[in-house]
């Protein structure tokens, strides 16, 4: 099933960010990670609609965390990469690599 799921560019970025951040994967941390690595400013709204869609596809799972006063008493939502998500990410990156390697001299995915 995972092999048949086509991921968009931003979905790949989000899955890779979760893979890098690990246990502490929630909206703010993921936005920071993406900004730190790519310089791309991500809106929290776009981040959560993507996370919700990936969860519906079965690539992620989520759990509700703790709430703090700085969050206005609202709980965090932590995300975790599932086996299907890992597999879909690997497939997408392999496809990209096959299509792009050699296009730009000196660059390899």
């Amino acid at each position: 099933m995972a092999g048949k799921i086509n991921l968009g560019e931003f979905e790949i970025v989000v899955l890779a960010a979760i893979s890098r951040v690990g246990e502490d994967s929630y909206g703010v941390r993921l936005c920071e990670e993406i900004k730190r690595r790519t310089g791309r400013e991500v809106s929290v709204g776009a981040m959560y609609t993507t996370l919700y869609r990936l969860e519906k596809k079965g690539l992620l799972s989520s759990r509700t965390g703790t709430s703090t006063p700085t969050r206005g008493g609202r709980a965090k939502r932590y995300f975790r990469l599932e086996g299907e998500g890992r597999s879909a990410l690997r497939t997408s990156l392999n496809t990209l690599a096959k299509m792009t390697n050699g296009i730009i001299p000196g660059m390899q995915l």
Partner: protein
Amino acid sequence: MKVAPPPLARWLVWLFVPRPLREPVLGDLSESHNVLAARESRQSADSWYWGQTVRCIPVMVRWRVWHGPASRALVAIVIGWVTYGLVFSVLAGSLSAILPASYLAEIRHIGKGVVPGDPILGGLGVLAFLCMLFVAGAVAGGIFASIARQSNAVAIAVFCGCLFSSIPVGWMTGSAPTGFEWLQLVWLAVSIFAVSTGVIQRGRWLADVV
């Protein structure tokens, strides 16, 4: 120290963000707003919050429109009718062979406003009535499908219920089966097929795409 985000911006986010995403989105925005206020200034934190709000609204409106009951119902109907058009164009010849020639002759008269034994409704009026039932059933099916995401069976049951409520109209037109009743039953069958296909396809196939 906790700094509250601009109330109007927070209210706009609350208004536009759908319920499943509201808690984490508002929480994350508050958290980042607090960090920015402590690191830079309250003013820059507020302008960052407003920036996020402005960027959030179109994303959420698009998300709501696409996931809303009306768009789900519409997509279900369109997919269903396209499938029906493809399948029925193949089956139309076989169906004509099944129906007796006299019934087919009678069906051809319906388009001219002739319905045997029906003094009140003309043929076109009955067809318009059936179309209305079809749309009502399809919309009801789509809404049920969106409320209970996995219950395609419920959506189809509601749709069938709406359509079969039109059968008494056929019975009122005469005691013996007529060409009109045959037409009505065929209409019921293809409509059920069309919308069922749409709802199922919407649930299974498009779920991966959108």
